[in-house]
């Protein structure tokens, strides 16, 4: 019985081989695209995707011209980012010349904060909490994964990292695809759990960096007290869980966390006010 089956199989193979040699290139191609949707982006791809997402944000809002403020936000951000395990990322922080209240992260180490948000903050510790939240999105690859999963961005090795001439059609097509994905993602927001995780870790990163840990809580309380109808928080509120919900989640996570006994906490109110004086 078994012998008969094997003979039959052998006959089938012989017939196939006689009919046409398998097209290995074609086979490899189709397997490749199946696999690519689940493949993790390597650091160069993550960076390239982040560059395209960052370019999309910067296409909607210009950079603020104040060089001192730009450098200050980079210094605070880099110090907080260096408390994570991804210190090797080429972290870039920037102030958007935008009156609305919001902050954004893009894969590979890009973090943006609006002038409108900076003007509402009162200390470097609060800024550290906000940047810590965005840094967490980068470290945990929240946007990268969302782009891959929901926007079906395929990470095809080599394609994303092509930095070819601007007239290269393939490069432009890819930028267009990532830009479309980024537009949708920044408008609708990440999964709620990603935001809660970014709140928890953002607060902890600020504390690890030596700041008074509750800056992010104070910022969320101020947002919670903001009029929900204000146009300046429209996109922030649309793309994030309500501040009250985020505060409740942080409150639960903070109970028994033992953050009170930390020595030598700094708020940095004076330095914050001096370095950002040009924005006012």
């Amino acid at each position: 019985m078994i012998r008969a089956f094997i003979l039959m199989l052998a006959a089938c193979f012989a017939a196939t081989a006689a009919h046409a040699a398998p097209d290995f290139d074609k086979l490899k191609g189709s397997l490749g695209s199946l696999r690519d949707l689940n493949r993790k982006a390597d650091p160069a791809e993550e960076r390239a995707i982040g560059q395209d997402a960052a370019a999309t944000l910067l296409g909607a809002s210009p950079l603020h011209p104040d060089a001192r403020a730009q450098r200050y936000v980079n210094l605070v951000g880099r110090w907080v980012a260096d408390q994570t395990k991804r210190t090797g990322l080429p972290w870039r922080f920037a102030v958007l010349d935008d009156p609305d209240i919001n902050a954004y992260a893009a894969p590979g180490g890009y973090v943006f904060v609006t002038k409108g948000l900076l003007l509402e903050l009162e200390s470097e510790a609060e800024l550290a909490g906000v940047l810590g939240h965005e840094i967490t999105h980068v470290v945990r690859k929240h946007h990268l994964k969302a782009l891959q999963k929901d926007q079906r961005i395929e990470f095809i090795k080599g394609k994303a990292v092509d930095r070819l001439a601007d007239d290269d059609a393939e490069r432009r097509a890819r930028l267009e695809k990532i830009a479309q994905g980024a537009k949708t993602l920044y408008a609708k927001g990440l999964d709620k759990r990603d935001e809660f995780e970014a709140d928890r870790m953002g607060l902890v990163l600020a504390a690890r960096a030596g700041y008074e840990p509750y800056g992010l809580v104070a910022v969320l309380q101020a947002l919670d007290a903001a009029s929900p109808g204000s146009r300046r928080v429209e996109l922030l509120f649309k793309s994030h869980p309500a501040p009250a919900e985020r505060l409740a989640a942080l409150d639960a996570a903070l109970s028994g966390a033992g953050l009170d006994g930390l020595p030598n906490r700094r708020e940095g109110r004076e330095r914050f006010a001096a370095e950002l004086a040009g924005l006012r």
Partner: protein
Amino acid sequence: MNIMRHLLIIVGLALVPPLEAAEAPREARITRATTVHQSPASDAVVVTKLVAQERVTVSERSGGWYRIVAAGGTGWVRLSGVRFATTSSESRGGLAAPLRLLQSGRAAVTTGTVTTGVRGLTEQELAASTPDPAAVAALEAHAVDATAARAFANELELRPTQVKALKPPAGEPKSDEDDGEGGP
């Protein structure tokens, strides 16, 4: 003459910077049953207890604590269990990062002498964005390295500290929040 003096006082009051108002106590409520302590520390004497939704007035912040006045007494409560009343005017005052300009609407936002445009990064702006790779390249001008960041931290005597990750809610997988999945 008297009228002039009164006018001057009124004008003078109007010119008082909003910072003065920031010391004003703020209406708030407690989100969950909580203990009120004599000083801002969990091992400090408990003065009284508050139930959820109880109204309080917040007058001061110290680290993770707010000093409150409630019907049952005065003392310190953990800040994360407090919600401030929605602000109804521009001069909201308060300790927790006042959203000073929130009520003014986008058109009225001023920066120094210039009133900025009415366009913010709205959903519509985002949808209409033409990606700007040159602006991404311009970020390099302000980049800093770890050495510069450390020197900057030293100026404020910021000391890196071991702090445990906060636990996610029950049922959610505990993430190693630093993993970065093998990235640099």
